[in-house]
């Protein structure tokens, strides 16, 4: 079976099957432990289960049972290459074989990121009324709709204006719906105060109340909760036995045939679909950075002039002090850089939080206070408004410049005065 005792402190021979069993329980629709063992020996029976699992993990496409295995294999290969999988060349191109490679791909995904935890978080059973404390999910650029939607011809700008208007109406409707929703939530929380077994929560949430109203639904919720608990336990168990799994995977790697010289690894290719939005994004970003750079230069200018003017006696103490300040500033900026390079957790809270209505003034540090979050949001709002008005002012200037080049026209702005009183022609 290939199990070897490495004896690094873990329990003996029995622990590896446990580890694999835990992993298979923790993965969604996980393949059976037998599949793992078969895959090590590259048996074809293991292929469908592993491929299904990998496709489920990687792509957001719905399960398509009708898709042919070859198509699925190709899709999987492209998906893995897009993620940067180094052994992409060795993945099977047809539906038949390659279970060992698929197993290695799965292990690669598991090793790179906390995959299990992420999957569990994604499929989490929500017991409370949740609100995300951050707005990060909106940072992801709005993807253009998938191909095949419209290849429209040229449109009139009035169509765009109409779309914008429609968008604004939608936002307003959303705001009023949300207002109502919050009012209802507040009521439900108030009416069920004192019912929850967890003293810190105090009241029931909508899913819980709904479970009480509809016992069928309640049973469903309970069952889902229990399934999730089982998966969580499996994940925790896997964590304990992880070491053995990785040692086993080393042995799997060893059993692979050596690199074939005949098939050079094909470099991963960027998808054409992704190309255009990425390059647009890069363009937009480059403009922003340039504006930023110029702004910084402009702001630094007068300060430098003032400093130069002031620099009277340049004694050694002054130079020493200058160096010290330089070092301090450099340290600060390096720390700032670390934040975006390595993604240190942002100081503000993030992630979904359960709403709890509580009249207590200081609830012993149990959670995030709404007032704090509102403060953070207000400052974000101010930043964004500032940025927007700057951009609008920029456009204003551009268009004013343009209008200045057109003689014989008066541009009357909506509420402010004239844009640029153009010198009229001879009267």
């Amino acid at each position, binding site marked *: 079976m290939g199990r070897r005792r490495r004896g690094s*402190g873990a329990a003996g021979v029995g622990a590896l099957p446990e580890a694999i069993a835990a992993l298979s329980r923790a993965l969604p629709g996980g393949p059976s432990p037998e599949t793992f063992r078969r895959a090590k020996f590259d048996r074809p029976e293991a292929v469908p289960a592993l491929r299904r699992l990998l496709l489920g993990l990687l792509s*957001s496409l719905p399960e398509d049972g009708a898709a042919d295995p070859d*198509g699925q294999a190709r899709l999987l290969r492209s998906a893995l290459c*897009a993620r940067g999988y180094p052994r992409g060349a060795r993945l099977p191109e047809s539906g038949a074989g390659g279970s060992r490679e698929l197993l290695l791909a799965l292990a690669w995904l598991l090793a*790179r990121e*906390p995959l299990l935890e992420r999957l569990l978080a994604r499929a989490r*059973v929500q017991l409370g009324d949740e609100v995300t404390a951050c*707005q*990060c*999910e909106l*940072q992801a650029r709005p993807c253009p709709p998938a191909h095949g939607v419209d290849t429209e011809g*040229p449109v009139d*700008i009035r169509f*765009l204006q109409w*779309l914008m208007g429609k*968008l604004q109406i*939608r936002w307003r409707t959303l705001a009023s719906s949300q207002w109502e929703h919050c*009012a*209802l939530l*507040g009521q*439900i929380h108030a009416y069920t105060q*004192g*019912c929850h*077994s967890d003293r*810190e929560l105090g009241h029931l949430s909508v899913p819980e*109340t*709904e479970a*009480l*109203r509809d016992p069928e639904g309640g049973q469903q919720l309970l*069952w889902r*909760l229990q399934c999730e*608990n089982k998966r*969580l336990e499996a994940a*925790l168990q896997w964590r304990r036995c992880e070491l053995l799994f*990785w040692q086993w995977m080393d042995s799997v*790697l060893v059993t692979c045939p050596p690199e074939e010289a005949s098939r050079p690894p094909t*470099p991963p*290719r*960027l998808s054409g679909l992704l190309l255009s939005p990425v390059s647009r994004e890069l363009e937009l970003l*480059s403009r*922003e*950075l340039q504006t*930023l*750079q110029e702004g*910084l230069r402009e702001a630094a200018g007068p*300060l430098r002039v003032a*400093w130069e003017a002031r620099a009277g006696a340049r004694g050694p103490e002054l130079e020493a002090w*200058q160096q010290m300040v330089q070092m301090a500033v450099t340290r600060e900026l390096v720390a700032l850089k670390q934040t975006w390079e390595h*993604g240190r*957790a942002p100081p503000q809270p993030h992630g979904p*939080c359960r709403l709890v209505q509580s009249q207590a003034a200081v609830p012993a540090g149990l*959670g*995030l*206070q709404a007032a704090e979050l*509102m403060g953070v949001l207000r400052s974000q*709002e101010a930043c964004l408004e*500032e940025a*927007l008005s700057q*951009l609008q002012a920029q456009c204003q200037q551009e268009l004013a410049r343009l209008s200045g080049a057109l003689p014989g026209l008066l541009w*009357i702005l909506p509420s402010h005065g004239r844009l640029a009183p153009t010198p009229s022609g001879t009267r």
Partner: protein
Amino acid sequence: MLPADSSRRLVAELRGALDACAERQRELERSLRVSRRLLRAWDPAETPAPEPSPGRASEDPAAGKPASPASPAHGGAAPPRTVRGPPPAPALPPRTPTPQELKELELLTQALEKAVRVRKDISKAGQRSKTASLKSGSQAAAPAPATAVPPGASGRAGSRAAETRPSRGGCRASGPARTMTPGPQATKTGPGLRDQHEPPSADPHSPEVFRLKEKGTLLQLPSAYRKAASLNTRLWTQLSSTSMGDARDAAAAAKNRFLQTLQAAPASSTLSVAEVEAEVARLRAACSLLRLRQDEVLAADPGDWKQEYRRLLTLDGLGAMATECLQRLQDLRTVVAEQQPEPWPEGRPPGTPLPCGPGTDPLWHPQRLLYSSTRELQALADLRLRVAMLKQQLHLQKVLMAELLPLVCRTEPPDLALCRAAHSLLCEGGQHFLCVLRDEAEPVD
């Protein structure tokens, strides 16, 4: 008219924004439906009367008390709604009840309803003044054999007391036999009392209606659920704890070793999509952080010359970092431009959008957000929506600027309608329009 490719891009962006909005609206509507339904009268047809009451009584150490007085003492005018936990085996997925169970349930429901009515009549007749509120009514007017059970469904103190009893809402009745024992008893007492008090029973239907507003505090979660929920919280906390024990260190080392061995293949020089996306995300974060720091520095009041020097150095440093980011961006653009795009087989390219920035831990762990009043909640939600809307507006502004400004400036002769529309979109957010008047040279005679 706008050129085709611009049109396509702009329409796609706007449609994307509209779709995102529509999606949010749909989610909100779904939640609204559920909440509205909860606040209306609960349909008794949907919620079968609780078996737990007899179950509770059967587990009560002072067993032998008829179930019927216990339930009204708890529920006042209506049987307390507790979820019937999963029948005998707690972990069963929902199954259809057998006909026998249905019959038992039917009988039980009738018995309980009668008992409730009787109780109400008795208490009405007995102590009119105290039946003003359900809660006090159920406590004070309990002429039935005094239950050792504190009639504690009213108010917080009540519910806590109720919790301490073995009154598991989850029906752990060991079998139909036990549930049925109090039944006939109740049925016996029911009709008996009923004959006496038939006339005063005023409104037989209102006691059966359950409204969250009036009786919300009587609800109780079943024990099976409570256990599962607390286990769930515990497990999540464990899972998301980043404590690195020895075992985890060793595992992490083994993991890295495996990764390195795997990547022993000659590394391809080209970047993968995921790497490009990650780099773009990093640069985006860099841009916003730099801008934030710039605003902080510029907003600070001018201090003495030392502080001014420090500000100068900071601005210089930020400028240097911006230049560096620009350089990386440029490199990335050349790489992307060089790549031979491969047609995607089907569907959209997969990719998990990283929440909260590159590299941050996406682990979820239980956390809470406390609010004090509905008004506060509404204000919070409003702010969130406003920030989201502003972000979208900002993005659209950039896109529109990128597309429209070149067009407007370039067309010869200038298309005035286009200028006017562009001005409105770009400078006024589509809210206002300007007027363009032709300044006629000829004097009006």
